[in-house]
């Protein structure tokens, strides 16, 4: 190692949003001030995973992990640790279980159950340096494929590996590739779907931001197999950093000759182009995405023909998502059998999950298929924050469904999640505690899909709106007998008749919340009660006379003068005037304002 210390500063979008780049600048300045430039190298890396600890800094070789580092902390780290060899303990990670300092990043509980294949380089190399990627074996798989293997032998390895699409459906990757390969055409295309729109999923963004060359390499290998010489990566415009790093990586790969004519002096040529979306969730659907690449409105069309027969420009096209392509180089280097050893009977390899919501450790976690939901959200995610309990997790975003604690011991694979009424989807895991109202959550997801519906087919355009109307009615306390059944009927009709995946899966959050939380729906309808105290129209406010200190703060804040009382006189809320805005609840310093639901 040329440098005494390597300091890795996480520069994924999450850490950047908490000023990691300013921390890096400050660190460079401090190192410069002390004349340590020759000894210490500061490297910007992609996402390391534990977003809730950000900005995260990892120091090699001693593996010290610093969390929540701010500009003010930099001087102390450089002087105490880098100069004097005394790590700054107050910024180090403490195990929530033992409350003890964790001295090595590999011992951090968040990382211990993870198996990093797709994310192996994320957070370990500078994503803007092709040299660093090559140093960790980058483009070896492409070289091996085009110089030592035939398209058929590559395809066979993919088949043996059991790789399935990581974007949602879980369709076997080798079959998609084979269909495209078998088509006769003068031109074929390889497309990467990086239109990661599922709320709560951010693994594709992290892979592109942290290790863009892995994607390029995987796509080039796909091109070699199917006989395509051109590829597109369709990235959503909400990810400017990913677009920038990917474009940079593509030009580096072109310069070095890993993209372009006669790659590795073979007969294989492959070129890649980035296409940027403009804010339309439906473009994650493959036929809509293809329309968008062609510069059209991103509306889907009926299938068949599938893109493997008629894709972009009507030519055979293979289309996979980022995480799927990111697996490819590892399969080529280690062999399909290696991957097939990891996972369950039907689902091989690992899956990257994005943990968010009311959970202690938010961020990215890559685990072998077959890991249980419990391991994922408790051993890695740390469970709910202090004093709360997880009541459900939403898997698969707005297309998926919720899963309740009694099913948390289910090993995760494509089939098991579908059986539970959820789905693998892209791997978003949104944890919800008792403060989440499941009816309101379902309404929220539906609000999203209603808004994002492209309007082309009636079931999705009109049906979802009707479902939303029913849910809105229920959350407003106007629900009636029969509403749940009407929701179920509509949901099942839309599922079977909508044109594309968006509409076909949009009712899932409603169906799964009805399945597992029917009692909450019934409480809303019959008892006008929202147990989570979320649905505004079902909540009333009262002042606890024992706790009230008669300070008048709430009365001053009340927008409709519904609070009687004065200094020294305990306050009372006039229910007929109250509009349940909650201002008094928020402002009371003594916790005297109580929220009630369904009790009158």
């Amino acid at each position, binding site marked *: 190692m040329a440098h005494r210390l390597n300091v890795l500063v996480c520069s994924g979008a999450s850490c950047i949003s908490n000023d990691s780049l300013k921390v890096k600048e400050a660190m460079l300045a401090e190192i410069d001030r002390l004349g340590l430039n020759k000894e210490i190298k500061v490297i910007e890396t992609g996402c390391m995973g534990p977003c809730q600890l950000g900005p995260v800094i990892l120091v090699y070789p001693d593996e010290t992990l610093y969390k929540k580092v701010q500009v003010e902390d930099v001087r102390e780290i450089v002087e105490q640790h880098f100069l004097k060899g005394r790590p700054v303990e107050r910024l180090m990670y403490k195990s929530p279980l033992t409350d003890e300092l964790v001295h090595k990043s590999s011992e951090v509980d968040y990382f211990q159950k993870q198996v990093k294949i797709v994310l192996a380089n994320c957070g370990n190399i500078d994503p803007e340096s092709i040299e660093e990627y090559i140093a960790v074996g980058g483009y070896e798989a492409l070289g091996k494929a085009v110089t030592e293997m035939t398209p058929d032998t590559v395809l066979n390895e993919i088949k043996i590996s059991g790789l399935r699409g990581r974007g949602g459906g879980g369709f076997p990757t080798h079959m998609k590739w084979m269909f495209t390969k078998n088509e006769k055409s003068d031109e074929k295309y390889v497309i990467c779907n990086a239109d990661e729109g599922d*709320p709560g999923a951010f693994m594709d963004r992290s892979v592109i931001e942290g290790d863009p060359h892995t994607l390029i390499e995987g796509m080039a290998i796909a091109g070699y197999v199917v006989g395509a010489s051109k590829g597109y990566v369709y990235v959503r415009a909400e990810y400017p950093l990913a677009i920038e790093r990917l474009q940079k990586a593509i030009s580096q790969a072109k310069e070095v000759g890993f993209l372009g004519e006669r790659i590795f002096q073979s007969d294989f040529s492959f070129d890649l182009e980035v296409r940027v979306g403009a804010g339309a969730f439906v473009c994650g659907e493959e036929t809509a995405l293809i329309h968008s690449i062609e510069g059209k409105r991103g509306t889907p069309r009926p299938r068949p023909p599938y893109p493997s027969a008629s894709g972009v420009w009507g030519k055979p096209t293979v289309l996979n998502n980022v995480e799927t392509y990111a697996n490819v180089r590892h399969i080529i280097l280690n062999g399909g059998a290696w991957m097939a050893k990891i996972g369950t009977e039907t689902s091989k390899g690992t899956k990257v999950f994005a943990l968010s919501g009311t959970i202690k450790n938010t961020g990215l976690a890559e685990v072998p298929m077959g890991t249980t939901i419990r391991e994922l959200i408790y051993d890695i995610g740390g469970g709910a924050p202090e004093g709360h309990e997880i009541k459900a997790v939403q898997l698969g975003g707005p297309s998926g469904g919720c899963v309740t604690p009694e099913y948390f011991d289910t090993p995760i694979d494509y089939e098991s999640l579908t059986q539970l009424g959820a789905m693998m989807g892209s791997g978003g895991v949104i944890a919800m505690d008792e403060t989440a109202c499941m009816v309101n959550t379902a309404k929220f997801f539906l609000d999203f899909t209603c808004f994002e519906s492209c309007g082309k087919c009636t079931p999705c355009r009109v049906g979802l709106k009707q479902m939303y109307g029913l849910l809105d009615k229920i959350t407003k306390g106007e629900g009636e007998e029969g509403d749940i059944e009407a929701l179920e009927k509509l949901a099942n009709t839309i599922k079977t008749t909508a044109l594309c995946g968006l509409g076909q899966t949009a009712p899932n959050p409603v169906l799964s919340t009805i399945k597992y939380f029917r009692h909450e729906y019934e409480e809303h309808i019959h008892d006008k009660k929202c147990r989570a105290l979320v649905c505004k129209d079902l909540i009333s406010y009262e002042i606890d006379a024992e706790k009230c200190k008669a300070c008048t703060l709430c009365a001053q804040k009340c927008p409709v003068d519904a609070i009687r009382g004065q200094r020294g006189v305990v306050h009372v809320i006039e229910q007929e005037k109250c509009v349940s805005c909650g201002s008094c609840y928020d402002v009371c310093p003594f916790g005297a304002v109580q929220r009630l639901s369904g009790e009158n």
Partner: protein
Amino acid sequence: MKRKEILRKYEAKPDNLLYILHDIQDASPYNYVTEEDMEEIADFLGLPYSKVYGTATFYSMISQKPRGKHVIRLCDSPPCHLMGSESILDILKEELGIDVGQTTPDMLFTLEITSCLGVCGVAPAMMIDEEVFGNLTPKKLRKIIKDYREGNV
């Protein structure tokens, strides 16, 4: 950059339409594309105006009305919602004195809601132009707005 200069950068192929719309919008001081823009793009690409208009209006990030210098996009996806994006929205409205979809009279800010920004680990989050801000609290939010108002960015 002038419209003509932007168009010159591109080959006249219909699949460049989205790129061109983005570029023209970014070059506009008011962050939008005008009818004349769309007409000229249609001529340049050899497409009917209706096609260009249809595409431009389909995508939520392309605006047909003038917007502020800075476009604030607050994420209101479930993870952000669960972590309190609603109260962040209230403060944004209060600070800016505008509702969602509106622009401040000084043409400095436009407030929009966006779908997932993919930084759910640091929810609630928002984006101002191309900059992402996470772990938003009322205090942090007010400071960010102040910095933008004073041009300290």
